[in-house]
Every structure is written in C-alpha cells, then in structure tokens.
C-alpha cells in the first residue's frame, strides 16, 4: 500500500486499494463508500478531493435511510464481473419498494446526479403512469388537480386523442 495518495483521485487509484469515502446524511449518520462506487455520482465526483482520509462529505438533502440504499446501489453497480441479466434482476428488486421510497430515490439520485439510479427510478414511475387516465393518476399519486373547470375543459379538448 503506497504511503501517499495519488494526486488525481478522479481516476481510479490502484495504488490506494479500496479508497473509502465518508458521507454524512442529513440526520447525522455516517456511511462509507468505496471511491469507485462514489464516482457513480457526478456530485460526489466533483466533491472528492485529493485527501484520502478527508472529513465526511455532508449531504444535507439525503436522509440516512435513503443514503444507505444509495450507497448499496452504487456499490453494486461498481462491482466488477456482474452480468447484465443479474444486475437487471437486482435493480428490479431494488426498486420493488413502496411509492414514497421510489420518490425519495429519485430526489437523491437527482441531487447526487447518479444517471443509472435516476434512469431506473424514473422508469418505475413512468410505468406507474402508463395506461392510467388522469383521474387514476391523480388517485394513485394523491394529487389534487387545481384546474378551474374551464381550464380542465380546454386541456381535455386539446388532448382528446389520448382518450380515444
């Protein structure tokens, strides 16, 4: 193990085995993540500096509960030698959670800029939306429509194709 960390930590650093990055959630929990996994997040990539043993990176927008799962996701996706099919199956299990959690993943993935997680979770929500009528969508996501009756009428008229 080399005594000093390589200057550029953005690239994979073979001389510093399993360089761990510390993250702190909004509620004060600390998590450790391998650098390779952390690099899945563009936000983290930008934040990681040259100091191998740096202080934990604070993530005020993500709770411990979600951050734990995000770390799990990134670690899995940084694992070498996982074939596409089993990764897909793992992903499917990962998002097999309740609605609220999926949305929390979306927000975390958006904030941390993790394209794989963002893509996965947005697809899940898109699947929830597909095939539903606007009323069903509102009921499903508990959304209040604040259209006035006239607006609602106009919107429906413009989109009548979708109801045929």
């Amino acid at each position: 193990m080399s005594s000093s960390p390589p200057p550029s930590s953005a690239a994979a650093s073979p001389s510093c085995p399993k360089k761990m990055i510390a993250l702190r959630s909004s509620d004060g929990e600390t998590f450790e993540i391998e650098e390779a996994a952390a690099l899945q997040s563009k936000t983290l990539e930008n934040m990681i500096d040259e100091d191998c043993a740096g202080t934990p990176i604070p993530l005020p927008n993500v709770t411990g509960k979600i951050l734990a799962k995000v770390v799990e996701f990134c670690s899995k996706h940084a694992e070498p030698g996982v074939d596409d099919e089993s990764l897909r199956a793992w992903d499917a299990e990962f998002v097999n959670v309740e609605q609220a959690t999926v949305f929390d993943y979306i927000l975390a993935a958006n904030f941390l800029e993790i394209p794989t997680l963002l893509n996965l979770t947005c697809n899940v929500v898109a699947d929830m939306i597909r095939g539903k009528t606007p009323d069903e969508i509102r009921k499903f996501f508990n959304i209040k429509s604040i259209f006035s009756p006239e607006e609602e009428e106009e919107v429906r008229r413009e989109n009548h194709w979708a109801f045929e």
Partner: protein
Amino acid sequence: MGCCGDDDDDDREPPPRTPDLSPPPPSAAAASSSSSASAADDSTISPMNSHFSALACRDTLRLIFEKLPVPDLARATCVCRIWSSVASDRDMVTRAFAAPWRLKEVVGVPSSGSFWRDNGVGKFAISHRIKRGDSVASLAVKYSVQVMDIKRLNNMMSDHGIYPRERLLIPISNPDILIDSTCYIERDNHAREVAMLYPEGVRDIEISSLLKRTTSEQGKKRILDSLRRSMQVDDGTAQYYLSISDGDPRAALSEFSEDLRWERRVGLA
C-alpha cells in the same frame, strides 16, 4: 441544482413543507377528499407526503415524462397544472412525437397543441413535386400505395390530369422513410395539420411558402411586432409593407429600406 422551478422551496428533508404549486383559486377544488389535508394546504399536492416534491419538481417530472409515449404524455397533461406545463413543453412533445418514427426534427408551429397528441402514421405525408411523366398510377407504384389513397389525399374527385398541380401528397406505406428525416408541419388538402416529408429536400421557395402556410395568428403577430421594432414605425406601416411583400418579413424590410433610401434622395426624409 435548479430544481423545483415553481417555487423556491428547496427543503426536501422529511418532513418538509411541500412547495406551493399554484395560488389557490377562490373556487379551490377541494373536490378530492384526500385524507388528512390540512385546511391551509388546499393548494399543495398531498401535503402530508414528502415524496411528492419529486412530482412537483420540473426537473424530475421532465425525466419521468421523457419515458412516456404520446398518449400517456397527453393524459399526463390533464393531471394538474405543473404536469400540464412540463408535458406541453415544445421539446417534450416533439420528442414524444418523433420517438417511435426516429425522426430527426419537426419544423413548424402547429395551430394547436393537440397536433402533438396523435402521432399515428396517418399524421404524416410525403410531398412529391410533380415532374413530367408522373401519373397517379406511376406514383402509386413508386411509393407502394393505392391509387385510391393518393386520390383521396389530394381531393381528386375525377380523373383529370395532375399537371396543373405542383405537388401531390402521398401517404406513408413504409415508415422507414421517416427515419432521421425532417418533417414540416403544414395543412394538407383537407386543412388537417400533418407532418410533411420532402424526399428531395426543401427548396427556398418551398420554405417561404411553408412559413406562410404554417404561420398561425400568433406567429403572424410575432412577425409584425418584430418588423415594427426593426423598422421603428407604427403598426399600420409595418402591416402595409408586410402585405405588399406577400407576408415575407425579409422582403418587407428591404422594400422599406428602398423607400427610405428614395425618400432621402429626393429630400423628403
């Protein structure tokens, strides 16, 4: 991060206050009896649930909607105001419209947003410039369509010749022709707005007549306004020059400069 375009509520830690999505109208639709909505929060989406800020944030909505095909995007437009706004964005509707056909681009401004809500193959047509020797029969063979379909699309009641016309519209039989193409929004012979394909590319003359034909009332007003601003004249004068140039703003501007030059020369201005 630039999220949550509607409001500056950045707080996403639970339990957050979900952002105000729109000012509560006096006739606030307290219709849906959502379980424990606090009285003051009638205007917000599900105030008790933190995760709904993901559904009220334009960025994330955009990412989600990008995965929806045209009919689902159309239905999403009807859900609530912010969904409607994101789902009607020009880039969004163009993407959904173009995706299944792998179009490169869609040019033009439709007269109504409903144009984007149907992207079946019947929404497209080929604009074939008539050359010597063309006949309806030969074109039917060339494009692999029925003679009847060409006649119908071009309002050809009888068997009169096609030569007085400049072009014939041809329905699409092979969708592969749309791949990587540019389509122009125009009205067909039945005044329906369609996405037109020009297999030989579009010439200048066609472009300007296209501009004229696809320009809606709003578009015309915009052209008039910008002309008036560049010429620094009143509405009536701008209107006059636009009309003598057949609606072409560039020609209008050059006519105007000509006149201005003449006026200066003879000492009138």
